[in-house]
Structure formats: C-alpha cells, structure tokens
C-alpha cells in the first residue's frame, strides 16, 4: 500500500509530526521501523499478516537495518525471539489466535528469563470452530504469561504504544516482554488518520538497546537453569514483584510520550464518568462504539459513563477503584468467555478487584462480540437497559452471553 504524501506539520510545542491516513497494520510496522527493531522472527497468521509483510518489505529494501527470519511455526518464532534477545538484539514479533496458542509454552519462559521482546497480538478468536475474526479469546488464554499487556483502541494508540512498548520493556528496572493487543481486522485492517512522529523524535525518546546480560563468550553466563523447590518460589516472587512494580515505569514512559506528542494515556481511561451512576467497562476498540452509546444515553439524561481498561497486566487495581468511584452499576463487557466459569475473564477480575471495597457497585458481566460478531452502539444501549432492569430485580445470573440468536 502506498503511503500518502506527508503534509507539513503545524508549528506546536510538541515534537514534529505529520498527519496521514494509513492502514493500522502498516502504522504498527512503521512504529517498529521507527523503533529500529533489529531482529524479527515471525510466522504468518491472519490477521497479523499485513504487519509482518510490510516489515519484511522494509527490511528487504534496507529501510530498516534488521534481520527478518521466516520461521516454520509460531513456537519457533517465540523461541527464535528469545535467542535474538539473548544475543543482545532489539526483538519484535507479531501473531494472532492459534499462533499465540502455539507459542503459549514459550511465552512464560520469555518473561521468566526477562527478555524485553515486543509483540503485537492482532486479537482473533480461537478455534473451534475455526474463526479468523476478532475477539479476545486468544489473549485471555495467555493472561498469566507474566508479560506486560496493553490494549489499544485505535490506530494512533497502536502506533504510539508500539514505540513506547520497547522503552518500557527495555527499562533495566522492568526487563519484561510486552504485548500490544489490537483487535484483529476491526482495527488491524482499517485505514485511519493518525499523527506520525519522525525518526529523530523516536531516536531521542528510545535509545539503542544495551542489555545488561547477553550471551557473550567474554562474559559467559548460564541462562535458563532449572529450579529445585528451594528456589522456584523465590524466582516467581521476583517475577511477580517486577511485573507489579513495572506499573510506575509504564506510566512514566506514557507521561514522557505525552510531553513529547501531546497524547496522554492512562491505565484506566474514563469517559463522561462525572456523576455517572452506571458505568460500562470495555477493552480495545469496542470502546469507541461504546462512547457513541454513552453520548446518546447521556442525551436521554441517563447518568452513564465509560471506563476503558488500557493496562491489563500489571492490573491497575487502584486506578480502577478510583475510576469506579461511587457508581451503582458496573457493566463489564468482555470479548471472551471462560467456559464453565464466571463468564468473562475481565469481569471476573474487576469483580474481585472491587470485592474488598466498603461500597461497591453491582457488577454485571456481558459477553459480546465473540468470533467477529458485530457490536453496534444499539447493543450497548440495550445492555444498559437490561442491566438496569436486572439491578431493580436484585440478583441475576453469573453473566450474560449477549446477542445469542434464538
């Protein structure tokens, strides 16, 4: 896809940028290029393909000084990423759905060994039945892999967070791999207007990667030793503490980006939550649709607001509790289902995060948009109405699978 010609940027206090319209996958690829990723291993899977196609193109043309290897599976992609990162190279990969599931085993190892790999997951439903369309079932199955995980809402966020992910991951006090989740097709394949920053700005923001430990004969180390029961728990505690403590570094990188570009990001975003008695909570690009519904409900004098969970791991407990405030009803819209369990994984975590609060809203879980099912603004309005009715009645079922055809 040809890039539209850049227009001269208006004079502002922020770093130079230019506004372009481009497919979001290509914007992500451009972000990886601007971040000067050095080593990329990938295996094609819909809907991640446009990212790696474009990246292999810029490597082939010499526009990005990097090595791109086409491995024979996602399992090998993540394994090769570990090797690349261990050798000391800035490492990137992208995947979706079955690919994420195939690399599942290695994801835990990448984070436990503290390799700052950055990965885009173009979220897609898991088989079966086979579905190439969007939901969050793939990443929710990889919830506990010990990576930093962010959800983006639009192309601009996908671009910004891809660059920021490298800076967060490579922080010596973090050193954790990072996933940027973006909705497959619904976001990955749409053309959006976004502000691109230039190479100089990114170079100043993101210095070259200089690892503290790497595989080097001059200073040989053993990586990936096994642990007996005497030490395994301590290693896990270390990982847990690092992931939890990465919060402040994540927020600080986001703040730095805000000062640079004027685009600020928070772990939990609030939209029209002033005096809101009813809150919707969403992740990913469902949020933009939900905002339309909130606007329309507000016009009808319903005190509705929207919370958007951007940071999924580490889970922003305090931000969430503050953002919920004294709302009476919290409706969590999940795009994944924990079969035979409490319903949506996000709802179940939000509920447990708020359980200890002296005052807490009634929490209802709605599972929407599985396997690419469209979720229009009307759906959110309908959900708000149904949830209100249920709250008036008292208690309802554990969760609702919304929009099932009878």
């Amino acid at each position, binding site marked *: 896809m040809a890039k539209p010609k850049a227009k001269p940027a208006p004079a502002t206090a922020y770093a130079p940028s230019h506004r372009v319209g481009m497919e979001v996958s290509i914007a992500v690829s451009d972000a990886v290029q601007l971040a000067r990723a050095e080593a990329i291993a990938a295996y094609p899977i819909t809907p991640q393909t446009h990212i790696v196609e474009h990246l292999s193109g810029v490597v082939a043309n010499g526009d990005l000084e990097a090595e791109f*290897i086409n491995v024979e599976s996602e399992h090998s992609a993540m394994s*090769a*990423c*570990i090797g690349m990162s261990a050798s000391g190279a800035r490492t990137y990969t992208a995947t979706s759905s079955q690919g994420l599931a195939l690399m599942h085993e290695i994801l835990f190892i990448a984070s436990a060994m503290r390799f700052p790999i950055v990965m885009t997951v173009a979220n897609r439903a898991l088989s079966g039945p086979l579905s190439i369309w969007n939901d969050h079932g793939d990443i929710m199955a990889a919830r506990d892999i010990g990576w930093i995980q962010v959800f983006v809402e639009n192309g601009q966020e996908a671009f910004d967070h891809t660059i920021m992910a490298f800076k967060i991951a490579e922080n010596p006090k973090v050193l954790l791999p990072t996933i940027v989740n973006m909705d497959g097709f619904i976001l990955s394949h749409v053309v959006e207007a976004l502000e691109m920053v230039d190479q100089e700005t990114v170079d100043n923001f993101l210095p070259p990667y200089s690892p503290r430990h790497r595989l080097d004969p001059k200073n040989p180390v053993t*990586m990936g030793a096994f642990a007996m029961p005497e*030490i395994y728990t301590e290693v896990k505690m270390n990982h847990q503490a690092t992931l939890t403590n990465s919060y402040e570094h994540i927020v600080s990188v986001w703040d730095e980006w805000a000062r640079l570009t004027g685009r600020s990001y928070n772990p939990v975003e609030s939209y029209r939550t002033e005096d809101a008695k009813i809150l919707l909570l969403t992740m990913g690009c469902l949020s933009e649709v939900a905002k339309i519904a909130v606007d329309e409900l507000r016009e009808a004098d319903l005190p509705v607001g929207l919370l958007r969970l951007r940071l999924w791991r580490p889970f922003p407990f305090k931000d969430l509790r503050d953002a919920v405030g004294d709302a009476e009803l919290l409706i969590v819209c999940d795009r994944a289902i924990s079969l035979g369990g409490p319903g949506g994984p996000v709802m179940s975590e939000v509920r447990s995060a708020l359980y200890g609060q002296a005052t807490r809203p009634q929490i209802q879980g709605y599972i929407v948009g599985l396997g690419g099912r469209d979720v229009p603004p009307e759906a959110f309005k309908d959900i708000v109405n149904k949830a209100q009715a249920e709250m008036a009645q008292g208690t309802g079922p554990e969760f609702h699978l919304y929009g099932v055809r009878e």
Partner: protein
Amino acid sequence: MEKFGFAESQKYDTYASRLMPRAELFTPGHRACQGCGEALAVRWVTKAIGPDAIIAHATGCMEIVSSGLPQTSWMNPWIHVAFENTAAVAAGIETGLRILERKGKLSGPPPKVVAMGGDGGTSDIGLQALSGAMERGHNFTYFCWDNEAYMNTGIQRSSSTPFGAMTTTSPPGKRSIGQSTWKKDMVAIAVAHNIPYVATASPSYIFDLYFKVRKALETPGPAYIHVLSVCPTGWRSPTDLSVRLGRLAVETGVFPLFEVVDGTYHLTVQPHKIRPVKDYMKPQGRFRHLREPELDYIQKRVIDRYRDLLAKCGLPEPEFPFLPKEAPAEENA
C-alpha cells in the same frame, strides 16, 4: 579445515592425544550417572568447540545434570529454553549476532553457535524446529546426543530406540518383542536437507569426534552431528563397559562412523572385520529378552544397511567372519 580433513583425522587417532585441549569447558561436579557416555561426549565436544561459542541446549539429561540453579557446569555462554525448540533458539542467536555484527555492535568476529539436544529433542519433538533451522541455512552446528530413549524421564521409547529394545513404554510381553519399529534415520533426514556437513560420532572414538566437531564448526551453514551416547542406566549395561559398547557399536556395523560433506559420503572409521551384532547386544539388558530368530533378523538388517553405506562411500566389502563363506559373495554377485 583442510588440516583436519578426513584422511588426516585418521592419523591423529594414534598419537596426538597430548595436543588435545586441557581446559575443561564442561566442568566436573555435574550429576550425570556413573558411566554416562553422553557426559563424556559433551566433555569432548566442548573441548573441540572451545570457549568462543554460544551453546543452546534442549531440555533433557544433559541440561538437568548440569544446570541446577544457581550452579552450572558450563564454561561457555549457555542457554536452555525448552525441549523442542533448541534449533529455533540457536537460529535466533545466530540471527541476532548477524545483525549486531553488521551494525558494528560486536567486538571481533561473532562467536560460533551450537545447539544440543537428546534423541527425543531431536528426532521426535524437536524435528520441526531443526528442519526449519537447517532449511533456512543458519550458520550453526547441531549435536544430537542419542542415547536411544527418553532416559531423563525414565527410559521411555523414542523414535530413535532400536528395534527390539526394552524400554518402560515398549516392554516385551506375550504380544510384544519390545520396540517394534526400526530406529529413525536422523542422519539421512539431515542429509536430505542438503546441508554442507553431516556426521556420526562417538565418544569412544575421541579423535574422530574431535575433528568432526572442528570441521562442522568451520563449515559455513548448518552442520549436524549425531553422537551415539551409551547410557548404562537405560541400556541396562555395566557402567565400566560404556566406552567398550561405543566401540562395539562401530565394530558390529550398528552405528558406523561416517561423514557427509556436501553430499559426499566418507567412512571415517573402517573396521576390517565386522563383528556379529550379538557382541554388541549381549552386554545390554535391554536386549536380553531377544532370541535367535530376532537377533538374526536384526543382524540381517544391520548388514544390509552397512552395505548400503559402503556403496555410498564407494568402499569395498569388509570381512564378515561370522557369516557362512558363500553368503556375502552371493549377495555381491
């Protein structure tokens, strides 16, 4: 590389022992079983690769005995990730070093990259990653420590377990003679990838092993070395016979030592007289249940395969003293 060519390596067999490196890169104190042929192989392979090499190791016996946190037996930079992905990890390391060298971030030439795994981690669960890495042409050397079963988990059969062998998951019984399939030919699979260097080796032939490792490392592109590693624990053999059994495997033609350089076969150790397979199988408890008909069946297969290999090497027939006089002549006609 010419210095250590196939003909030269034969000469060193007798008198060069004092020239071998003294430094131990696989250090004592590891937890391998008594008589472990694999630990002996690792010791000599690491001596041959030297300190300027990065090792990626698969999960398995050698990983478990050598790397209990916070201790290590490895003097090289060493990484273990998982069971089935060692070749992919090595491919990643090699790729990373390539870009770092190109960007001028390495001081000096990039170190050699070596991958190591057991027969399960190579011919079963790791085959896909290995095939991918060989196909892509990464400059690395892969070592398969072949002890012919999943010894680390308790002697379960692998695709590399020889026909007739008893393992805990291929037990002989009223309806079973033990392992019912022939050993997977990993060397042929490696050769089929058209990589520049493939060899078999044995820690019972240290000099042959040593020079093959040197050649593999100095060959640009992928190299594969398949090392027969006698396992007294799994083979139910006396621990003091490990080196002897390794020699018997070669002398009986069960595990010939050869190399395939750019598709050309060379037999690197040529016994003048081939011994009967019984000599190799008898000291091993895993073959104890086999009777004459099965041993004859295995013997025939071993001779057939050995003759195939000799034909590929363009070598004349050795003596098979245990065969009836007319038999080899007849088959040669």
